[in-house]
């Protein structure tokens, strides 16, 4: 399931190195306090989430941390 990020998150992600050509691996920190680890972001704009997070919305995201 892909969640399209807005300009705020895209701009933040573009400040960090890629993990590979065209993608980054991130930890998604939710406002609920939960962290969804090791999620792929494509082209700094498409968050590829597991199916169990199909209902996740942008407003639920507190932070995106690019993994090294």
């Amino acid at each position, binding site marked *: 399931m892909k969640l399209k990020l807005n300009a705020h998150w895209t701009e933040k992600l573009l400040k960090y190195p890629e993990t590979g050509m*065209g993608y980054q691996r991130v930890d998604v920190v939710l406002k609920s306090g939960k962290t969804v680890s090791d999620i792929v972001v*494509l082209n700094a704009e498409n968050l590829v989430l597991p199916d169990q997070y199909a209902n996740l919305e942008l407003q639920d995201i507190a932070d995106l941390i690019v993994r090294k």
Partner: protein
Amino acid sequence: MPYKLDIDQMHELIVQPETGMGYQYVEASMSDYTSLKGVVLNGELFIPENKIAKIMGRHYLTYSAVLKEAEQPGYVRQLTVLRRDKLHLGESLHFAKIAKTPASGAPISETEIKQFFKRFSPYRNDHRITEDGGLRSGSYATTEADARNVNTGTVAVLRYALPSDEPAIYVFSIKPPEKTLVRIGVVEPANGKPGGGVEVLFEHGSPSKTVTGPETIPAG
């Protein structure tokens, strides 16, 4: 000037191991009693170390042309095959040894003048390419040489272990200034893909007007 070997020398070399595919490192005692290290090609042609770059460099001649220009047998008195570590040929001439590790773990190196790189992307609006034709810091590409192995977007996905199965059909060309800092390595298997391609991590990106494209290749 390269030197042809005589039949006895050829027979002597052919029973010894190669250093690499089609060549042997040797030390040659010459007819003037000087000693030269170099390489023997195909068991028959000795090229001294200090001539290798000129003869075998970027504007290399065909083997038959080199053979035609070579001195006739008689200049080389004796040959000793050397271990690989006894000779270092052109390592400083080659653009960075490609580490057998991912680029992120490779040592930093510098690009050479007029060196091209390619970036394969499923996205025409690749956000790593800036509006003024630059490449952002921490972005990946591949070498022009490795890109020749890629004729479809699907091959790119497999070779560079991209996480999305969407064919990477958009190809950007990057021509960074000389001495741009990069790390070069090999793509590890990841995302269910085999990897194995060469990956180049642009430590600080590449400035404006150095990225062109994209060209489009078949999906596969």
